[in-house]
């Protein structure tokens, strides 16, 4: 009896150790300041981004991070061009994040405000992560809540007249495990469920239907534009698994796969492979290839047969069947490897990504005449290339 009591006590002590962990406490990353510039060109849009990020520890257990990001958008995507003029807009995003570490647990609380002329989003995020099993395993849990106000600019780019159309709310639940498998291999898996409700359609995008569906040649009379009608709820599940391996020489190879499914009938796969090669202690070179595919939403159609043919109707290119492929190259140069004054080191990074977007059932309406006459539904599928440039300087102190 005494023996079994001891055994139970040992089990309980063991379980407690498993939960609390056995090695040293977690540590906060270095203080850093970043200046960031980006440029996206593609699909008729030119978006430049400028950002400043500062992260500062106020003790060994507490850090604050602030970020300010400004996107300037000019142009408009192809489906917007079919029923609206060229757009010029600016998005300003402010974030404040607090991080607190106690023993092996890290707590993060963040608030983000993003404001455009016709879209305001406020996001609150809380997450915690726990190191366990001798710091070989990190378990994290997160919750995010976003409240969005959606408007439409019925004026011009320079004289906006914004009409506020409604609101949406989004909640995200995230859980992840990162696992050290060997001294060369680390793996991870993340699951995120997001649920939205409210006004979920994009006010700048329209459906189209045949103007004269009863004719001898369907849609011979061209098409007419109409309003999109979306469900007012949406729930999605995404799971991503990834691995990174330290090669026999000083370099790393990574692979990740994400599966996505939602209540609108979209299923998507994302595969990414990456390779990281340092050169001496001054350069880190990286290359990555990403492939993505999705099928279309159940209520999506490039061309509806007649007006109000379904209760929900969409022709947003994000909901169309599509694939895209990214090839990216990145180079980081350490220009202060030995530090200078308060700075431990500094790096400058350049990143170029080329993305080819190809749609399976979203057509390019610019192939038709300007008044959208001609046989609708015979247009070629839309595809375009985008190039993303990033350059940023990071100072660590």
């Amino acid at each position, binding site marked *: 009896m005494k023996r079994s009591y001891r055994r139970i006590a040992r089990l309980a002590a063991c379980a407690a150790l498993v939960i609390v962990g056995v090695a040293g406490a977690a540590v906060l990353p270095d203080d850093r300041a970043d200046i960031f510039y980006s440029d996206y060109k593609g699909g008729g849009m030119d978006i430049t981004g400028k950002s400043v990020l500062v992260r500062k520890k106020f003790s060994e257990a507490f850090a604050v991070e602030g970020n300010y990001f400004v996107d300037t958008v000019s142009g408009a995507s192809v489906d917007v061009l079919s029923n609206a003029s060229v757009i010029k807009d600016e998005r300003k995003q402010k974030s404040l994040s607090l991080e607190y570490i106690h023993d092996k647990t890290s707590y993060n609380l963040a608030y983000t405000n993003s404001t455009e002329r016709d*879209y305001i989003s406020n*996001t609150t995020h809380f997450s915690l992560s726990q190191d366990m099993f001798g710091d070989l395993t990190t378990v994290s849990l997160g919750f995010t809540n976003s409240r969005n106000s959606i408007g439409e600019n019925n004026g011009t780019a320079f004289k906006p007249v914004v009409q506020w159309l409604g609101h949406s709310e989004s909640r995200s639940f995230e859980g992840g495990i990162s696992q050290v498998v060997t001294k060369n291999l680390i793996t991870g898996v993340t699951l995120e469920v997001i649920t939205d409700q409210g006004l979920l359609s994009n006010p700048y995008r329209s459906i189209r239907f045949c103007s004269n569906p009863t004719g001898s040649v369907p849609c011979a009379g061209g098409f007419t534009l109409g309003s999109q009608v979306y469900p007012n709820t949406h729930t999605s599940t995404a799971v991503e698994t990834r691995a990174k391996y330290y090669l026999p020489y000083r370099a790393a190879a990574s692979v990740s796969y994400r599966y996505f499914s939602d209540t609108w009938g*979209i299923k998507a796969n994302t595969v990414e492979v990456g390779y990281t090669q340092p050169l001496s202690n001054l350069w880190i070179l990286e290359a990555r290839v990403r492939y993505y595919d999705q099928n279309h939403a159940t209520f999506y159609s490039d061309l509806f047969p007649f007006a109000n043919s379904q209760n929900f109707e969409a022709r947003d290119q994000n909901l169309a069947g599509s694939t895209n492929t990214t090839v990216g190259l990145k180079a980081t140069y350490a220009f202060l490897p030995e530090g200078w004054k308060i700075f431990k080191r500094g790096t400058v990074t350049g990143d170029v990504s080329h993305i080819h977007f190809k749609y399976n059932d979203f057509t390019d309406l610019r192939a038709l005449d300007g008044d959208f006459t001609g046989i609708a539904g015979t247009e070629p599928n839309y595809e375009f290339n985008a190039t993303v440039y990033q350059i940023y300087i990071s100072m660590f102190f």
Partner: protein
Amino acid sequence: MHRVFRTALIGLALLQGACSIQPWVKPYERDRLADPIMSWDRDALSGAYIDHIYDSREGSRGATGTAGGGCGCN
């Protein structure tokens, strides 16, 4: 009843076995894992920006470790 008892015993033994697992990668063997090239996301700002580009142009979202952001509708 015996079967339940036996299953419980096996479960307890497994739990004890799992509990006695020692970290198989010792702290002094983690220099490669601590190398910056093994970080999932060395530059969070750049990672969040790229994720935002994909989120604005694809039907899928989530499980990439970023939160918040705006519309990017146009």
